[in-house]
């Protein structure tokens, strides 16, 4: 099983001079290659603990870097930059700034669970990816990803009514992400669906978007879930020290003003 290595030499750190002569010897091009030293000095020693405090990140400390997750990964196959093994390594080492270089793709995990299936150490890399994506958002390193917005739209509806209605969720998602609704390809899809559907069924589907399906006697569950969500959110804020971060930022703004 191959272990996908991560090259730590970045293109911007490679310096090659087209024309170069050293003591009368022509070292133009490839011969003058110079690799700029890579220095990591800003460790976040609490990084692993912060990820562990978020749901899904609990088992990250178990990783022994075999690389089975990256080898099995669906997204890695179409984008080699997507590398769960490497990100778990960075988190465990506390190399926050290195992790942030990939902040815009970590949310792309499709939850296929191939990594969790392959992992010999029960790290549950899929859940670690979700925890890491949340950490990036909670700390303000990235805006909420479209995936998170979809999760929120969906979950809000489930918590509110106990059930989901596709049309409503999709529409709300497009609205909240500020995208054109419906996209052109969806129009094509709906048109092809209309070809065969009887009127009665269309009416039923249309009604479903107006009158959302509901679980009856849901109010107590709704309250219980909301209470739990609020409790967990407070717990995560504390674990990540978000209130201190906000306070520090406010102080900085105050000082800058005065």
């Amino acid at each position, binding site marked *: 099983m191959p272990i996908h290595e991560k090259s730590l030499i970045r293109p911007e750190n490679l310096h090659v001079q087209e024309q170069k002569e050293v003591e009368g010897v022509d070292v133009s091009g490839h011969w003058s290659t110079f690799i700029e030293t890579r220095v990591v000095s800003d460790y976040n020693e609490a990084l692993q603990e912060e990820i562990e405090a978020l749901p899904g990140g609990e088992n990250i400390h178990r990783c022994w870097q075999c690389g089975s997750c990256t080898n099995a990964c669906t997204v890695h196959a*179409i984008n080699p930059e997507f590398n769960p093994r490497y990100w778990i390594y960075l988190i465990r080492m506390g190399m926050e700034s290195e992790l942030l270089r990939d902040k815009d793709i970590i949310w792309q995990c*499709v939850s296929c669970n*191939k990594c969790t299936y392959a992992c010999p150490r029960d790290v549950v890399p899929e859940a670690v990816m979700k925890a890491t994506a949340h950490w990036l958002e909670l700390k303000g390193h990235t805006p909420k990803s479209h995936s998170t917005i*979809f999760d929120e739209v969906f979950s809000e509806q489930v918590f509110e009514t106990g059930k989901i209605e596709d049309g409503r969720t999709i529409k709300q998602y497009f609205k909240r992400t500020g995208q054109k609704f419906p996209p052109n*390809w969806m129009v094509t899809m709906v048109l092809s669906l209309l070809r*065969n559907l009887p009127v009665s*069924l269309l009416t039923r589907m249309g009604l479903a978007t107006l009158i959302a399906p509901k*679980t009856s006697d849901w109010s107590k*569950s709704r309250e219980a879930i909301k209470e739990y969500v609020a409790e967990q959110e407070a717990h995560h804020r504390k674990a990540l020290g978000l209130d201190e971060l906000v306070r520090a930022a406010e102080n900085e703004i105050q000082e800058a003003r005065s």
Partner: protein
Amino acid sequence: MTDKKTKYQEVAYYPGCALEGGGHAYNRSTKALGKKLGLKLKEVDNWNCCGAMEVKNIDPKLQTYLSSRVMSIAANKMGMDTVMAPCNGCYHNLKKAEYDLANDPESVEVVERLSKKSGHDTYQAGQVETIHALDWVKETIGEEGLKERVKNSLKDMKIANYYGCMYTRPRHIFPEKDQGPGSESTSKPHFMDDLLEAAGAENVEFPLKTACCGGAHTLSDSDTSTKLVLNILQAAEASGAEVIATECPTCHSGLEMHQIRAEATLGVKTNVKIIYFTQLLGMALGLKPKQVGLHENVSDSFAFVKEKGLA
């Protein structure tokens, strides 16, 4: 212990949200198939969403609670010992909840607390067995039973069986799989292959049976999903398949949707048909295409099933 054949004759049926929405064809065909085979489905009273693939990203334990409520109703209100969920998402989440409630004290604590506040009985691990529609048909009727009942053989139909992610992964939540002869395999699942073959179909050697269609990000990262789906569609065609048989509403609509999107955005057209296994089995048993909801699929397979003598 009663054998599965007897036990699954009457099961609590958990259709889930997708089967009441975009996956209605799967709902219709599952019910029609059950009726045709003389199997009883009792829909779970006043069920709720299992959390799908989204709620776990807000909090995994809430997903466990949502799934546990469904199982609690089946066990404590309806007195059932088996829940059958045709949707891979529902099936997976109920299985996951079962595993967590048997192994993780924290999950038990959260579920107890939320169930108490919600005013219903707390689900106890082991009260019900969750099965997939594939287990249901396979264990009750089986290949021999199907062969006896086939009216319109699926002969000359080349099928790629697509199971997706949530039917087999991660392995630990499916303790009954990988248990030798007669059990389902998590690396090379075959229950759908077995049933369709019994109905006369020719299963092609399909390498992407448990590949991912990108269903979780079908809207939030459509380009990735289109790439993943196109890979599946093209691999099926390269394997000589005319049809991809599906057993999950998310995979099914994902394949249909991104088949259209691949053509619209990448200009790549694929012709392979996308049909639920329950639709294929129903038609093989003599049901009309509309009785199995073929008209509710996004992709149009009418001409195809007619050509194969099923309509």
